[in-house]
């Protein structure tokens, strides 16, 4: 820097002059705001405005195409409270969100530990792992629907061949099995991303941590429990919290697999509110449930940013 200090000021002055010609005298802040303007406009129009519109709708009466007819009422929340399906929807939403994340962690963590090793075919294994993440989820979920088909599906056929059962199980027709099926497909679609994140976390642990432990004669089990897991804590917290939020807003798997059938027993809040608005044309209740879902997810978001901050401090 010292060597160029003679030439730099005049060069910079020329550059500033050129910039002023382009943008007027905006300065550092002004130029930055100008650069942010396009994205801010997009967010304002496509995210913030519809959000405000939904919140307004929750406290208004609406007609059958979602137009607000009068503002300032809690009737939508009261109707939602009296809706006999709601207790089931709430229960299913929480079981679905937390259940799928717990199951995804249970599969992904060991998977990442194995993929972190050297073995022939490791590269191929990592490539195959990412397939469900890259493929269109709506289309993979429809393929699962075909696999779960009671008479022609691959799953029942596999069970027949292995002699586990000779019955044609109605995977998507019985409430408990259908709920299990949508959770399974959600886990199937979430494993790749989580595994890759865990794998990245594992690879960021310095290898000499393990060398020291091996000299102390630590077993491989202790290696995982005492050293890998604490080192992974931050990435673990971030990934699981993000996954919970994504699971709460998950729509595609349920919609393409069961559409909430049978009898709303595989619906969660986002699919149910979609039905309230677009099938029952009860936009008011749809808005109210959307608002409640928004509040719930905001709580998780605040929690998420808190955790991030505290991890950075600690």
């Amino acid at each position, binding site marked *: 820097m010292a060597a160029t200090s003679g030439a730099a000021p005049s060069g910079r002055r020329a550059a500033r002059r050129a910039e002023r010609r382009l943008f007027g005298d905006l300065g550092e802040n002004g130029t930055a705001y100008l650069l942010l303007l396009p994205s801010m406009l997009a967010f304002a129009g496509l995210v913030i405005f519809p*959000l405000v519109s939904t919140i307004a709708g929750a406290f208004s009466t609406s007609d059958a195409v979602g137009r607000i007819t009068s503002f300032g009422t809690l009737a939508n929340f009261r109707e939602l409270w009296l809706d006999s399906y709601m207790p089931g929807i709430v229960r299913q939403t929480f079981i679905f969100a937390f259940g799928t994340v717990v199951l995804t962690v249970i599969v992904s963590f060991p998977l990442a530990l194995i993929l972190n090793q050297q073995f022939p075919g490791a590269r191929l294994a990592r490539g195959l*792992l990412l397939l*469900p993440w890259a493929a269109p989820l709506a289309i993979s979920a429809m393929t699962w629907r075909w696999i779960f088909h009671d008479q022609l599906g691959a799953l029942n056929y596999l069970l027949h061949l292995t002699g586990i059962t000779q019955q044609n199980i109605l995977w998507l027709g019985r409430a408990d099995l259908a709920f299990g099926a949508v959770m399974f497909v959600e886990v199937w679609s979430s494993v790749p991303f989580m595994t890759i994140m865990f794998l990245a976390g594992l690879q960021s642990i310095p290898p000499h941590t393990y060398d020291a432990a091996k000299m102390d004669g630590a077993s491989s089990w202790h290696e995982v429990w005492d050293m890998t897991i604490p080192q992974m804590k931050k*990435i673990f917290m971030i990934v699981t919290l993000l996954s919970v939020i994504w699971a709460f807003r998950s729509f595609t798997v349920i919609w393409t697999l069961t559409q909430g059938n049978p009898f709303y027993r595989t619906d969660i809040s986002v699919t149910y509110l979609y039905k309230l608005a677009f099938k029952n044309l009860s936009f008011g209740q749809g808005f109210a449930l959307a608002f409640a879902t928004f509040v719930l997810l905001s709580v998780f978001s605040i929690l*998420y940013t808190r955790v991030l901050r505290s991890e950075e401090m600690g």
Partner: protein
Amino acid sequence: MGRIGVVKWLSILFFLIPVLFILVFPFIVMISTSFKSLQEVSQIPPTFIPRQPTLANYREVWNIIPLAKHFRNSFLLGAGETFLVLFLGIPAAYALCRFRFRGRGSYMVFLLFTQMFAPVVVVLGLFRLIAAYGLVDNLAVVAFMAAAFNLAFCIWLLTGYFSAIPPEIEEAAMMDGNSRLGAMIRMTLPLSWPGLIAVAIFAFMDGWNEFLFSLTFLRTDDYLPLTVGLFRFITRFQIQWNSLMTGSFLATIVVVALFMLVQDKLTRGLVAISEK
């Protein structure tokens, strides 16, 4: 060492291989079904490997499902989202990366916030406007919505790729008489092209795989992308699974091929985001 070796091989045999099998299973079924005749997919018991493999589906599916139109629409959604994400995201990412302006922290928190609530919530709020202004069946609306929801992620990715370019290069360009933005356009953008391509493909995949906005805001077959087009086919007609799986395979192979091109760059970028 020997004992650890045994544990490793047992875990590969009894955990990794079964899990990988489940992860790729739908794709195996997809391919296998696409080579079966309608008669073979309707017979009981079913088959895993087609007994009389046929290529007929790949010829005929185009007449059974308006697949060419769906392909065109998916492509338009992917390309549209790519353009929008780059157009809106590059300036924003550059500002976040190189400028220390007032409100920078708030903007970062806001980006995070856009990822935190359900797109369904927005769909509901936007519907009456879309209907009132006759914007149903407008692919641009869907591309804009999808881009807005993917933008935060893409800005984070771009910020990561831009920060890898040393600012001294821009300073040198500015000494040659370039403005700050001129330096960015002439130096930083060309140098970060592998990252830009990764983001472009990420956005294209997101547009191609989009489902919820298309399901809500596109109604006519002529405007449906593959995801919703194939879903309509499932719900509207007596399902011809062989045609459906042929279309599904064709729709999947396009994005998977693109993804393979940028797999390493993209996963590294995503990992960098989560570590921030």
